């Protein structure tokens, strides 16, 4: 038998050996061809009497299998338009396709011959599901990179090749639930302790051990095919306590996902329904829920953004082609405040020699203290060693002397948001820099083209916008000014990749992309407050629609004084009566009369405890603004949800309209990573494309604009897109090719 993705041989004892090895890939995934091969060798094992048993292993040093091919999967997700088939035919076809691997693995499991698998490296998702369908699993005990897990839920899917059925039958419902719902991976020791594998051995021994077991157990059966099999911990409605487990699992999911993640609910249902019936029925139930889940916009959105786009951007997909890759020998960070200190840390962590500059050596040292604290914490938690920590700190040189900047490939300026100061520093740095060095300004709002005027090499000048805290936030927004060259952009992307963060590339404007759009969520919250909507409603609906915090809590974090400044500046710019505006009056009252400037003061819209955690909404918020809406019906909740999310998406659309952002993928990832836009939507563009459709979105925006004002008015671009039936991913498709996908 000749297979494309598996090696195949049968030894003298009749033991077949299938070696998983997808050509041209560093990691095995369950491509369509791999599934076809599994079907083929399963049939061979089941029907060829000369074959007495089967051992499966991997030919890749990277591990066994990383799971489904998400590139292929992403194409199918979200529901397609297959109008040539009737509803019933379509469903039948979907089931048959969805069940092919599931049914095959069941056939392998029940073929009457022993099947064992040797797992020398990672087995995730479908990879682990293939292993679970084998009767015996041997894992390597000498590979620290080995990990097992069912991570499908992280991208809006569920394990569809038996994982929701076999894992609970193996380890019990209670132990299986968190593994499947949260998708966290586990190592070989834990796998052995749980019974997910039966034996550990050295990598060089696993195949032999698997083979020995196959020879010794000619009539293998899965535990659930043995007479009298009982699910560990019991089955809901059949065993005492098992109903309680189901109830609590539902509670956990409902309270944490706010009903926004259909995969989570469907995983619960696969287990709840599947565990009550024989496994054959359970596998069919799983396939039905898998297809149900895969057809939803959440699945398509999450696969595309959270997996494929993240992977592509993290490999530099938005880097202009044709420029050599920059290796950074030395980078200077100017300004050792909170941002500069964080930037210095991530650079040193990535092994880049860093010069940290401030007005005095003492200030620069204070900035380095930030790294010292982080290193100390990592060492004390066992995440790093003393040696590694010392080496990291040694990479950071502190100084007040610009001569030390000499020879840097890149300068990251991270001083106060003050144009004059930034101009001065630009000139001081450029005085010592090479001609090719790039000057990056970490600013969150100031237009780059304006800042570049201070530069004698504006083509080398670029915005590099970090988010706070730098060491935890994965995104960096790169802003090209009018004169920034492609070569400079390429260097900036290289830099962001070098410090292991995800870059998005945008064009210049006040607030760029992220700062500008981020503010719309909190401002809509302020509008609701001004309308007399009870603060608890604003906060609860904000979180429940998928935002990480309530709008008022976000305002507290940013600072109400900052919000007041922005509101005053905006009102002034629009020629409005600043004093007479009731929103301004309200914020001024909070900040100037009540001293409630936000979290930093321990009091803002919320009262904070000494740990800086919000204790409760300040009961006197409504002394100034009368509460007119103190109940929230499901209809009102839907309306407020729409206002929150549509308002942000409209601002994103305006950014496209003005050329600030040009790639739907950058916009989506930016919206999720920068300001936490509801991740289940896949980001603002996917929210428009997949959850409304362009025409539906424009209609909704028009409705909201008529009711609440022009802030919802769709820009001309959106009307044109609606007229042509083009979504963001049609009009602004991601540049570059899709990265090879696996998970």
């Amino acid at each position: 038998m000749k297979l494309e993705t598996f090696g195949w041989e049968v030894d003298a004892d009749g033991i077949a050996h299938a070696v998983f090895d997808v050509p041209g890939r560093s990691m095995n995934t369950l491509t369509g061809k791999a599934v076809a091969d599994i079907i083929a060798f399963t049939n061979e094992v089941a029907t060829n009497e000369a074959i007495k048993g089967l051992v499966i292993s991997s030919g890749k040093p990277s591990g066994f299998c990383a799971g489904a091919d998400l590139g292929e999967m992403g194409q199918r997700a979200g529901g397609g338009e297959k109008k040539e088939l009737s509803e019933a035919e379509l469903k039948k076809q979907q089931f048959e396709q969805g069940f092919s691997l599931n049914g095959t693995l069941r056939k392998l499991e029940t073929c009457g011959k022993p099947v064992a698998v040797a797992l020398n490296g990672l087995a995730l998702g479908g990879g682990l599901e293939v292993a679970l369908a084998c009767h015996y699993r041997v894992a390597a005990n000498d590979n620290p990179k080995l990990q097992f897990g069912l991570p499908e839920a992280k991208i809006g899917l569920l394990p569809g090749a038996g994982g929701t059925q076999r894992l609970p039958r193996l380890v019990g419902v209670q132990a299986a639930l968190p593994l499947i719902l949260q998708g966290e991976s586990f190592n070989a020791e834990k796998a052995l302790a749980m019974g997910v594998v039966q034996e550990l051995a050295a990598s060089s021994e696993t195949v032999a051990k698997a083979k020995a077991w196959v020879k010794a157990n000619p009539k293998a059966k899965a535990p659930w095919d043995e007479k009298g099999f009982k699910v560990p911990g019991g089955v809901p409605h059949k065993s005492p306590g098992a109903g309680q487990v189901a109830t609590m699992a539902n509670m956990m999911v409902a309270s944490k996902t706010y009903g926004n993640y259909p995969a989570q609910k469907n995983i619960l249902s696969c287990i709840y329904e599947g565990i009550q019936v024989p496994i054959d029925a359970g596998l069919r139930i799983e396939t039905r829920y898998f297809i149900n889940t895969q057809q939803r916009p959440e699945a398509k959105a999450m696969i595309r953004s959270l997996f494929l786009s993240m992977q592509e951007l993290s490999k530099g997909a938005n880097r202009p082609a044709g420029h050599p890759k920059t290796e950074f020998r030395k980078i200077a960070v100017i300004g050792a405040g909170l941002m500069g200190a964080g930037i210095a840390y991530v650079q040193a962590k990535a092994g880049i020699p860093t010069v940290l500059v401030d007005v005095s050596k003492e200030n620069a040292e204070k900035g380095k203290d930030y790294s010292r604290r982080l290193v100390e914490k990592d060492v004390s938690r066992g995440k790093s060693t003393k040696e590694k920590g010392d080496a990291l700190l040694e990479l950071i040189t502190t100084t007040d002397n610009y001569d030390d900047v000499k020879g840097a490939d890149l300068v990251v300026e991270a001083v106060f948001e003050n144009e004059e100061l930034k101009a001065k520093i630009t000139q001081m740095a450029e005085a010592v820099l090479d001609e090719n060095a790039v000057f990056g300004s970490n600013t969150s709002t100031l237009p780059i083209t304006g800042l570049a005027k201070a530069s004698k090499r504006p083509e080398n000048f670029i915005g590099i916008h970090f988010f706070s805290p730098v060491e935890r936030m994965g995104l960096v927004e790169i802003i090209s000014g009018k004169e920034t060259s492609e070569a400079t952009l390429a260097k900036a992307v290289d830099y962001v990749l070098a410090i292991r963060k995800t870059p998005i590339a945008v064009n210049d404007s006040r607030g760029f992309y992220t700062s500008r759009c981020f503010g719309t969520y909190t401002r809509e919250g302020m509008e609701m407050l001004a309308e007399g909507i009870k603060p608890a409603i604003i906060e609860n609906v904000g979180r429940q629609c998928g935002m990480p915090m309530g709008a008022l809590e976000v305002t507290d974090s940013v600072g109400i004084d900052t919000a007041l400044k922005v509101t005053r500046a905006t009102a002034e710019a629009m020629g409005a009566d600043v004093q007479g505006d009731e929103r301004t009056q309200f914020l001024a009252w909070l900040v100037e009369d009540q001293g409630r400037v936000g979290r930093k003061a321990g009091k803002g819209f919320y009262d904070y405890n000494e740990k800086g955690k919000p204790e409760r909404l300040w009961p006197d918020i409504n002394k100034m603004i009368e509460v007119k809406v103190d109940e929230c019906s499901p209809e009102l909740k839907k309306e407020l949800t729409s206002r929150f999310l549509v308002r942000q998406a409209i601002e994103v659309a305006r950014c496209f309209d003005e050329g600030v952002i040009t790639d739907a993928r950058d916009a989506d990832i930016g919206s999720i990573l920068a300001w936490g836009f509801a991740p289940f939507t896949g980001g603002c563009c996917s929210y428009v494309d997949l959850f409304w459709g362009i025409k539906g979105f424009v209609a909704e925006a028009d409705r909201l604009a008529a009711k609440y004002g022009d802030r919802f008015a769709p820009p001309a671009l959106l009307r044109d897109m609606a007229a042509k039936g083009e979504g963001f991913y049609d009009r602004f498709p991601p540049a570059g090719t899709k990265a090879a996908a696996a998970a």
Partner: protein
Amino acid sequence: MTEAYIYDAVRTPRGKGKSSGSLHEITSLSLATQVLQAIRDRNDLDTSKVDDVVLGCVSPVGEQGADIARVAVLNADYAETTAGVQVDRFCASGLEACNMAASKVMTGEADMAIGGGVESMSRVPMGASGGAWSTDPQVAIKSYFTPQGIGADTIATKYGFSRDDVDAFAVESQKRAARAWAEGRFAKSIIPVKDQMGGIRLDHDEHMRPDADMQSLAALQPSFAGMGAMGFDEIIKQRYPEVEKINHVHHAGNSSGIVDGASAVLFGSKEMGERLGLKPRARVRAMASIGSEPGIMLTGPTYVSQKVLKKAGMNPEDIDLYELNEAFASVVLLMMQNLNIPHDKMNVNGGAIAMGHPLGATGGMLVGTVLDELERTGKETGLMTLCVGAGMGTATIIERV
């Protein structure tokens, strides 16, 4: 349509619903049998004229399973021609059973029928019948499943009932129940439970705490705060985003007690009553059931009362006596607030906080309690209602004849 008349009502005393309770060693079947026998014997009833027996039971499994109504009919030595059916509308099962029995008379399906219920919570624990609502993710998540106590606490939070408010209500319930027992106000309906030898096992409600006061209740810890913190508070806030934080005010002292007991109410047409020489005590004026929002679960009594009043062509002030099951104190406070019912018309002889709530049996007990009190005070109309699991309400209006 035929009028449905009430000819008699009986109930057992309520035993503490645990293994140390007096009725723990009496089977559910025996409880149901004894009320059926009592209603037969007190009225010298020819049971062959009783067409059907409808009994509420909320945990119809084990010894309460497989249609305990028919089995009790057989055990009580009724005519074998008397049918029996068990119904489950959670806490309103007993009242629903009465409404079904009355409806059978009204439609002519039956000339005489018994409604009531039975629940031995000490022998067949609450929740024993399982069910899909909390366990099946598809329905649990979309309908904001939370345990009842979270709903009761949400009512208190949303409608502004403080811990003191609910505790004060509980203290009053205890006082009223103690006075009613002291004055023999329940005597007409109570039938002592007999044991296996025919001796008297229990002749009074044993769950009462007449000495409860604000101070002793203040010492009790909230029962649902832990569950709420685990995640149920976050769920109920998804349906009620106006609630910032649930104020957990309910505890064992201001919630209904877990008890064992049974009830039976005899309904019949005027003609059949006359043929059997029975004197009608009241007639059923209107009946209703409704569904309400399931997450908060316990707001049904207001809505079902409004519905049943409308059906009867009455206003809230036309009712002389209200009897609303005291599942939780906030449930009663809310209905009083919504319908502007003075406390001296509501649960005048105490309620389930003092005497307990034997789930399936309670509805039938409320009918007897109202009927006895109307007769004692010479009043005319009474409304009985209960809040119900999964968001429902059932109500009945009766008037004396």
